[in-house]
């Protein structure tokens, strides 16, 4: 019986064709990513200097030709950290409640559907919603308003991501804990969170990355300023808006600052991504595979 390769057999040709298509797709995606990174790095890097990351803009409003984007860096870190912490406060209990008490029931599906819809709402709509609330309460643009709106955006993302992870909980583990006389709450808090810690961390950092990079929602709610924010009730600069405003100016020095802000934002998100992978690996120590 001849088992030599039949190169021109139809199904092998089809496989070769598909492999080639997949490779082309991979090249396009990697190429696009590379091109984006290249543009940001090549234009932002020349503008990077110690002043850029350690000073606020000088010489008149954000269009000033000197100084850096420290106001935006600090502002974004405050916005990102504040909103993520606020979102965790709600997301983790909701995700655990979904798992423990709602499971796959009708109500559970309604909650998941609502979260999916909220996830899909464009961030400028959240921004408009936040703005309307601010007018109704007579508030001005502030760090706090920005934190609240970003937390609203992050909440469905974080909750759904956590939910997806928690749903994969091996039933054996839960049963083992229940067999010892645990209440459902004890199983959720002592066993599920331990087992799902890497996944939960990833969910949190995913939402953080989304929040820190959002421009449309902070546009009306957090405002903008060329000073470093020092109170929850004052407006704050943010990196996405720094990019937006500065790229739109006619001065090349200001535009350069815009690219630098974009580069800094990319670096922050990259660091968070890598950090989340590292942390997940560390937290994997006790999980049951």
């Amino acid at each position, binding site marked *: 019986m001849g088992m030599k390769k039949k190169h021109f057999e139809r199904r092998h040709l089809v496989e070769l064709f598909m492999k080639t298509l997949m490779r082309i797709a991979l090249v396009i995606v990697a190429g696009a990513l590379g091109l984006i990174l290249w543009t940001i790095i090549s234009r932002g890097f020349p503008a990077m200097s110690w002043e850029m990351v350690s000073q606020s803009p000088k010489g008149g409003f954000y269009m000033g030709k000197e100084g850096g984007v420290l106001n935006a860096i600090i502002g974004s870190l405050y916005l990102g950290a504040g909103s993520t912490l606020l979102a965790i406060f709600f997301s983790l209990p909701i995700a655990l409640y979904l798992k423990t008490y709602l499971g796959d029931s009708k109500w559970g599906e309604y909650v998941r559907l609502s979260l999916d819809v909220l996830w899909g709402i464009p961030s400028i709509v959240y921004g408009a919603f936040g703005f309307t609330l601010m007018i109704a309460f007579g508030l001005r643009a502030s760090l706090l308003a920005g934190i609240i709106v970003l937390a609203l955006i992050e909440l469905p993302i974080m909750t759904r991501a956590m939910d997806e992870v928690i749903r994969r909980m091996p039933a*054996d583990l839960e*049963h083992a804990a*229940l*067999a*010892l*006389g645990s209440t459902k709450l004890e199983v959720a808090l002592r066993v599920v969170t*331990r087992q799902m810690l890497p996944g939960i961390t990833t969910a949190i950092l995913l939402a953080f990355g989304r929040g820190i990079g959002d421009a449309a929602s902070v546009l009306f709610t957090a405002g903008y300023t060329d000073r470093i924010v020092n109170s929850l009730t004052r407006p704050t600069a943010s990196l996405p808006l720094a990019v937006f405003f500065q790229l739109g100016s006619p001065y090349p020095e200001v535009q350069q600052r815009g690219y630098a802000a974009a580069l800094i934002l990319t670096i922050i998100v990259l660091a968070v991504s890598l950090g989340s992978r590292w942390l997940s690996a560390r937290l994997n120590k*006790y999980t*049951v595979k």
Partner: protein
Amino acid sequence: MDTHIQVKNLNVYYGKQQALKGINIEIPKKQITVIMGPSGCGKTTLLKTFNRFLELTDGAQITGEVLVDGENIYDQEVDVTEVRKVVGLLAQRPSPLPMSIYENIAYGMHIHKMKKDRSEYKAAVRHYLEIAGLWEEVHKRLHDPATSLSIGQQQRLCLARGLAVEPEIILGDEPTSALDPISSQNIESRLLDLKQQYTTVIVTHTLRQAKRLADYVIYMYLGEVIEAGPAKEVFTNPKHERTKQYLEGLF
């Protein structure tokens, strides 16, 4: 016979299908009872009614009573977590909790607040690991993940963990079927050692294991109890034809 568990008119339905039909049996205290029968006869279903695990399956309906020392565990006033403290389960596949070896054993004692301080917990963890025959092998690495143990060691860990909540009854759902012969023998000898302190009920599909372990035997077929009695009687002089056939290996 000193009865520990009494089952009265127990019927179990999975949706429209009836899995257990009119069960009326008694489980003797401080002996090893083996529930045996061919696949699908309902032995695991019956076992799971003893620690109210059946409720975890969607669509399972139970009628009748299961009395432990005269108290109906299905009564509305009864706390299911207390039932599961009194009736422990050793599952077929070892499931260590996602924690260290030490924390696995201490888990049950923590949730039921059974000890006063750290030194009491440490002493108790050591005690139960010794009973399960695991202390020598793990005492130098108590804070390693429980998943780093071999499967036979994990099952012994699960046994120690279950004993740590001081149950009166130990249920075993084919506790050695996932293990290699040496680990199986290990678990079997542990169970034999423990039989004077705990009432043990084991489900097995291996007749040989039943013969090695049983003091009391319950034979089931298609959701009904065909015969129940002391092991010596049932194995040497079965009263029902079906039991005879099963023992002779006809099916």
